[in-house]
């Protein structure tokens, strides 16, 4: 069976996240639990960042909601492999709706890293890019190198539908942790998105 080979090199989530953030302007970023959002925070806080402290697997649905609410703003969902495996159905929903302002990036270390490095299905049998394609997101690709990541990112929001990227990464944990104050995080995110009176008391 002819399948696309997996990415040949293991990249690093913190380095790739920094490269992503360096390219962003006013785009919203919704980052899944644990190392995914710690490395986003570590790359330098932006007002348009939403850091999840629970609800594992909901980064893509939350990002879809933001994308529908603000169709002129680019929205990026960051998830780990364990998180996206918990909610594969959302890829079918996103494939069906096909919002052109949504990009999904999956950091795939093949591990439930934070719970003790138990292997996930993507460590062996499951190809998450193939899953995304089959779910209805044809513009889905493996990131092969840091330069390739930059190149793929430069095409985000350029096509008709959403973009799905996945990178095989190493098992290095995030060096810093996000402050755990969900109401504050939500308020600052809404202020970053220019919504309501979230900045009224600044």
């Amino acid at each position, binding site marked *: 069976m002819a399948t696309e080979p997996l990415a040949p090199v293991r990249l690093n989530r913190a380095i790739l996240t920094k490269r992503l953030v360096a390219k962003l302007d006013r785009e919203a970023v919704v980052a899944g639990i644990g190392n995914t959002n710690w490395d986003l925070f570590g790359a330098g806080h932006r007002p348009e960042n939403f850091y999840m402290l629970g609800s594992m697997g909901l980064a893509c649905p*939350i990002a*879809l909601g933001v994308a529908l609410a603000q169709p002129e703003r680019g929205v990026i969902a960051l998830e780990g492999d364990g998180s996206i495996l918990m909610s594969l159905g959302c890829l079918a929903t996103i494939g069906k709706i096909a919002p052109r302002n949504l990009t999904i990036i999956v950091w795939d270390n093949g591990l439930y890293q934070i719970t003790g490095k138990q292997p996930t299905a993507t460590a062996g049998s499951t190809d998450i890019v193939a899953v995304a394609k089959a779910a209805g997101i044809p513009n889905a690709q493996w990131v092969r190198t840091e330069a390739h990541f930059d190149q793929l990112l430069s095409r985000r929001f350029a096509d008709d539908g959403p973009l799905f990227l996945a990178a095989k990464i190493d098992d290095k944990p995030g060096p810093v942790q996000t402050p755990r104050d969900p109401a504050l995080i939500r308020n600052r995110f809404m202020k970053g998105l220019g919504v309501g009176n979230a900045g009224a008391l600044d």
Partner: protein
Amino acid sequence: MTWSEAFLQVLKDNDVRLAAYVPDNVLTPLLTGITSDNYFRSVCATREDEAIGVVAGAWMGGLRSVVMMQTSGFALIANALASLTVPSQIPCVMVISERGTMGEFNVGQHLVARTMRPVLDTLGIAHHTLTDEATMPFIVDRSIKQAFMTQASVAFILSPLLTGGNPAGNAKLKSAG
């Protein structure tokens, strides 16, 4: 005006423009009304917690929205409520068609329905069981306004007294009688 038309009118009166849902028999008139009306955007989700995520994101992005599900679907969303919407103070308006009571034929539905109100109470989420067309618009209108003004979620439980219940169940009751 049917109960579902009256309900949708209250959503419009409150600028609720997005519905995320997992389909259900009793909800069908609401869902048909939403998907056939350009006023609304709709997202048919694969799971109810996915729908909660969508409306949470939409609200943070400035779009008022509602989640619709069946009783059994509510049993899937405790984590999304407890670790996302409640601590983040994201008002989530939930419409839940009530199975498990007044003629339920499926024991699984009966048991899962008994978990719903205790979970809502435990999380401090206001809930209203809607039983008649006369009081329903007032309850829904005021409670949606309260939810958005206080950034607190609300659940509307659609009783068989309002909706007539599940048509499949009604057919079974007839043959049982």
